[in-house]
């Protein structure tokens, strides 16, 4: 770690670039309190009418509940599917474990626009387009690699001695896993939950390919709204989403350390 005083020039440059990086997130706050009926910045008058307007907009509220339910289902399924796989690949070390984990994380290497198109074409054949199960399956394709990666890292860094001690003392493999391994990888589990939830809740490209007039996720509804009219409604909604994201980030930081979970 380098702890010498930072030169003022670097400080100023870094500050300017931080301002640029955060500008689009900061401007939505004043706009969400705009009294105008279309977007202009700075607003000519102020009001809080756009926040209740979100809840009066049937399309947005329906999309919000779809997204929330979708993110919860996807997160639970990701944990249930990725945890056994991570255990098998890390602890049982079958032949070809390396190749298998590359295959299972490969969907992350593919651009989502290509993956979205590929999934669209195959799912259309099975009548899965614009259905909830179809959305769940599409989101799982991108959340599972994250879940597998974080859980496998968590598992491989655990000291194996405690597990061995428990099994020497007569605990069955399942008991060892439930009573020793799971509690010890708590931070990995929290990180995975947060990551899968945010990835699914924010996912927009795959969802754009998978949704239709019958079913929409919140990011897709917002995308179509902005495409037609960029009024302050989306700003109010954005503020709520940013607050939600910050809450999740803070919870993760408090429970397992932000740097440990996201910076690898």
């Amino acid at each position, binding site marked *: 770690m*380098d702890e010498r005083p*930072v*030169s003022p020039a670097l*400080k100023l*440059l*870094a500050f300017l*670039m*931080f301002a*640029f*990086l955060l*500008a*689009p*997130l*900061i*401007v*939505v706050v004043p706009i969400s309190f705009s009294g105008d009926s279309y*977007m*202009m*910045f700075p607003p000519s008058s102020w009001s809080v009418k756009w926040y209740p307007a979100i809840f009066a907009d049937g399309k947005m509220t329906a999309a919000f509940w779809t997204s929330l339910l979708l993110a919860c289902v996807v997160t639970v399924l990701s944990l*249930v599917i*990725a945890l056994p*796989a991570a*255990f*098998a690949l890390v602890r*049982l070390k079958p032949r070809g474990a390396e190749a*298998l984990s590359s*295959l299972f994380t*490969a*969907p992350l290497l*593919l*651009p*989502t*626009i*290509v993956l979205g*198109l*590929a*999934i669209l*074409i*195959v799912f259309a054949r099975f009548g899965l387009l614009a259905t909830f199960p179809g959305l769940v*399956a599409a989101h*799982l394709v991108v959340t*599972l690699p994250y879940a*597998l990666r974080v859980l496998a890292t968590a598992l491989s860094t655990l000291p194996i001695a405690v597990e061995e001690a428990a099994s020497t003392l007569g605990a069955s493999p399942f008991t060892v896993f439930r009573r020793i391994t799971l509690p010890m990888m708590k931070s990995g589990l929290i990180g995975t939950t947060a990551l899968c939830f945010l990835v699914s809740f*924010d996912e*927009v490209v795959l969802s754009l390919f998978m949704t239709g007039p019958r079913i929409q996720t919140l990011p897709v509804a*917002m*995308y179509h709204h*902005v495409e037609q009219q*960029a009024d302050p409604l*989306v700003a109010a909604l*954005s503020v709520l*989403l*940013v607050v939600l*994201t910050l809450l*999740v*980030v803070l919870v993760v*930081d408090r429970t397992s350390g*932000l*740097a440990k979970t996201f*910076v690898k």
Partner: protein
Amino acid sequence: MTAAITMPAPVAERRSNGLALVVALIAPIALVNAFGFLAPVLNLARMSFYEVEPTGAMHEAFSLATWAKVVADTFYAELIVNSITVSLGITLLTLICSYPIALYLHRSSGTWKTILLVLVISPLLTSAVVRTYGWIAILSENGLVNNLVSGLGLERLRLMFNKTGVVIGLTEILMPYMILALLAGFGRLDPRVEEAASTLGAPPFTIFRRIILPLTLPGIALGCLLCFVLAVSSFITPKLLGGGRVFLLATEIYDQAIVTLNWPLAASLSILVLVIFGAALVLYTRALRAIL
């Protein structure tokens, strides 16, 4: 008898038991992978050879018609060149904007560093739609910049619905990726080397050019690869800030897939994106070998 129970099972039996267990444990993820990734991608490659009739109907065949169209039509050549040059420009700008932040983060410590890290990661976790909307507020006709400019008595600028808007928006959106990649590469920076150079009389800029920059090149290479690849394939921001007036590979794929419904053409364009990815990866590996 108790001894017999605790005796380990014969090796062969244990291995077959173990194999069955492994198969059972990875079956669910393998199923999702096969159905949601492998099959769709293989099908995509196959689809680029399907035949499309003038009516728009398509049928299974092995035809090079779509590929011939992509190669012959100068619109697609322009699309590819456009995508690559815009993405290269965005990558360079992202590097310039991210480097000071990464260097500053590397030099700070404690709570302050955590706060800065949260500020870098939070945009990453915020939807691209939200951040693009923020840019519309800043760049549009009645946006922040134009109201400032007209307040100064100058003529309003056209910052949106053109390449300028797309480049500004995507640069900001890709910055967190670049910062994290740079930070990962900054581990090689040894303060003692900088101090030695400074003691020997090197001015700060020389230290930066001769020591800091060369040592951080691997991080720069990784960040550039990541940003280029993400820029080529991004389409939410180009679509919203480009307003249908900026033609890139990714936006064309979406239009062909959803609007025109010419899936074979969308499939061939997707494969072109993957080819560009492969080329970028080869260049990156070469560059890395030259640096190290």
